[in-house]
C-alpha cells in the first residue's frame, strides 16, 4: 500500500490536479509562489504517487522513505502533493498562509504533520537530508531519502558542503532532485549568478548525475529507478523544467517566481487546465477527511 506505483496515465492526471490545486490555493490566499511549484508538479507527483514508500496514516512508520524540500518556498506544490496523497484534507489548502490554518508560508514541522524538518532558508536542506540518510544507514534502515533543491539555490555555498559530505560518506540511499527551471526571483539564473555547467559540477563532486525532462513522468520514473540502482555514491536528478509549466502566461517568466495570480488570472489559468475556480474550489472544499484524494479514473 505505501508505495502507490501509479502508472503514467494516473500520474499525468494527478499532476494536472496538483497544478489546479496550486492555482486555486494561490488565488484564494493571494500570497505565495507560483512559478516553482508549477515546475515541480510533475516530478513531485512521481515522487509522491510512484516512487516513495510513505504512509500518511502512519507518519512515524520507521520504514517510511523521507522527503525534504530544501526549497521551502514551493509550499503550494508541497501542500498539494501532501493533501492529494492523504496527509490532510484538500480543504486545508484553502487556508494556505492564513493565521487560522496549519499551512505556513514555508514548511513547518510543528504546524503540519508529515513535515519532517522545517525549511525556508535556502541551502540547508541537502545537509539535513545527508543527516537523515547517514543516520538511517547507521541503523541499518533500508529507507531512501529524497531532497528537492532549486537551481538558484545552487548558489548557496552550503549546498556544496553537503554535496562533498554525501559523496564522502557514499550515501547511495540519498537522492537529490534539482528543479532546473533556469529562473530565480531576480531573473534568469545565468544572469543573476551562473551555475552552469551544473551537471559537471555535481559529477566533479562524485555524484551520479541523471538528467531528465522533469515534466516527462515516464522519464522521471526511469530516473528514480536509475538512482535506486546506483550503489556507492549519491544520485541527483537534474530535472529540466519550465517555470510556471502548464499556465501559458506564466511559463518561462521569472516574474512569476514569487507572485500569486489574481483571481482573474487564476480563472484563465484554470480554464487552460480544464476547470474553473468555483468547480475546483468545490472539489477542495468537499474533501474534508484525510485520505488519498479521489481521481476521475479511480486511481485513488
Amino acid at each position, binding site marked *: 500500500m505505501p508505495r502507490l506505483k501509479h502508472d503514467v496515465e494516473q500520474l499525468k492526471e494527478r499532476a494536472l490536479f496538483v497544478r489546479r490545486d496550486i492555482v486555486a490555493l494561490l488565488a484564494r490566499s493571494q500570497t505565495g509562489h507560483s512559478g516553482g511549484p508549477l515546475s515541480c508538479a510533475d516530478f513531485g507527483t512521481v515522487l509522491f504517487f510512484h516512487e516513495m514508500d510513505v504512509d500518511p496514516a502512519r507518519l512515524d512508520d520507521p520504514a517510511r522513505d523521507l522527503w525534504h524540500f530544501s526549497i521551502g518556498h514551493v509550499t503550494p506544490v508541497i501542500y498539494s502533493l501532501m493533501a492529494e496523497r492523504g496527509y490532510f484534507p484538500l480543504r486545508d489548502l484553502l487556508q494556505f498562509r492564513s493565521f487560522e490554518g496549519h499551512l505556513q508560508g514555508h514548511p513547518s*514541522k510543528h504546524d503540519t504533520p508529515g513535515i*519532517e524538518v*522545517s525549511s525556508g532558508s535556502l541551502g540547508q536542506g541537502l545537509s539535513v537530508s545527508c*543527516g537523515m540518510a547517514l543516520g538511517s544507514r547507521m541503523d541499518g534502515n533500508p529507507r531512501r531519502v529524497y531532497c528537492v533543491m532549486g537551481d538558484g539555490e545552487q548558489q548557496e555555498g*552550503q549546498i556544496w*558542503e553537503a554535496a562533498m559530505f554525501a559523496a564522502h560518506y557514499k550515501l547511495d540511499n540519498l537522492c537529490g532532485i534539482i528543479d532546473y527551471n533556469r529562473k530565480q526571483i531576480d531573473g534568469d539564473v545565468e544572469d543573476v549568478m551562473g551555475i552552469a555547467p551544473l551537471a559537471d559540477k555535481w559529477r566533479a563532486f562524485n555524484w551520479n548525475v541523471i538528467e531528465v525532462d522533469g515534466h516527462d513522468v515516464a522519464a522521471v520514473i526511469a530516473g528514480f529507478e536509475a538512482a535506486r540502482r546506483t550503489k556507492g555514491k549519491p544520485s541527483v536528478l537534474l530535472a529540466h523544467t519550465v517555470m510556471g509549466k502548464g499556465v501559458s502566461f506564466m511559463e518561462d517568466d521569472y516574474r512569476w517566481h514569487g507572485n500569486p495570480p489574481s483571481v482573474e488570472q487564476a480563472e484563465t489559468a484554470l480554464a487552460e487546465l480544464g476547470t474553473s475556480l468555483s468547480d475546483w474550489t468545490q472539489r477542495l472544499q468537499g474533501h474534508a477527511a484525510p485520505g488519498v484524494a479521489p481521481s476521475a479514473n479511480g486511481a485513488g
Partner: protein
Amino acid sequence: MSAATTPAATGAVTARIDLAKPELKRTREGFGHGLLDLGEKNAKVVVLVGDLSGSTNVSFFAQKYPDRFIQVGIAEQNMMCVAAGLAAVGKIPYLATYGAFAACRSADQIRVTVAYSDLPVKIGGAHGGISVGPDGATHQAMEEIAIIRSIPNMRMIVPCDYWETRKATVAAADDPHPVYIRFGREPVPVVTNAESPFVLGKANVVRPGGDLAIIACGVMVFEAMVAAEALAARGIDARVVNIHTLKPLDVAEIERAARECGAIVTAEEHQIHGGLGGAVAEVVVRSHPVPVEFVAVHDRFGRSGKQEELMTAFGIKSPDILRAAERVLSKKRAG
C-alpha cells in the same frame, strides 16, 4: 588574597577549595569526558566534529566509539544541519566546533533548521570567551549567550568548571530540546566536584549572603567566589549564585536574590549586551527592581594575550567584581 578556603559549590559541603591556589582543569575535557559517559549509556548519541577533534576533546569519543563518530570537515553550517537530520531520524547528535563558528557562523542554521523544528541537537561551543588567549579576537567567542538565548526552543548552558561541563554534557541528552553548551580552552579553577548537584535550569547558590548577590556563569563563578571572600574580610556578606543555565533561566532564584539582597552584580565572560547581565536585568526590572552592576566585556573585540592578562585588561577579574560590588552597594545605600 590569603590562602583562604571556601566550601565547594555543592550546597552540601563535601570539599573545600583553595581560592588562592585552586586545582585547574580544562572545561573542554569535561565535554570530552561527558561524551564518553554518554557513549556508554546512550546508544542514540552520535558525535560530529568540524576538523577540531583534538581541541574540542571529542577525540576521546572518536577513539572509543568510531562507529558513532562523524567527521564533517571544515563545514560548520553543513555540520549543524547534518546534525538536525540525524536528530530527525532519532539520534541524539552532539557537535563540536569553536563557539565563534557554532553560534555566529551557523546562527541561521540553528535558528531555521534546528530550533524551529525543535530538534534535539546538542551544540558544543568550544573556545568561549576572552580566556581563549593567544588566538585573538576571531576565535574568542563572546556573543553566544546573546545569540542563542534570543532563539526560541534553545537551551543555553555556560558551565563553571570541568565537573559542571561534564554534567551539563550528560544532562543535555535527556532534554528533548536543542542545547548549546559553552566551554573554554584554557585550564580554569575547579569549584565543584563530582557530587555537586546539576539540574538544567536550576541555579546553584555557591555561597550564602544577604548584603548583595553576585550572579555569575562560567569561569566568572570562581572570580565571584574570590571577590566574595574579599568582601567578607570587610564584613560584607555577598551571596554567590552560579547561573549555569542561561536559558531557561532560574527566574525564582534571581528574584530571591533581588528581594533578599537588594543589590546585584552580574559577572560573565561575554559581551555586555544580551548576555547574563541582560538576562538578569530583564527579570529584576519586572519583578523586584534593585541596583544592578555588570561585569562583562564592554562592547569590544578581543585580542591576543595570555588568559590572565586578557581577563584583567578586559575588566573581568575579581577586582573588577569588587569594584562593581562597591558601586552597587553605594547605590543600594542611596536607596
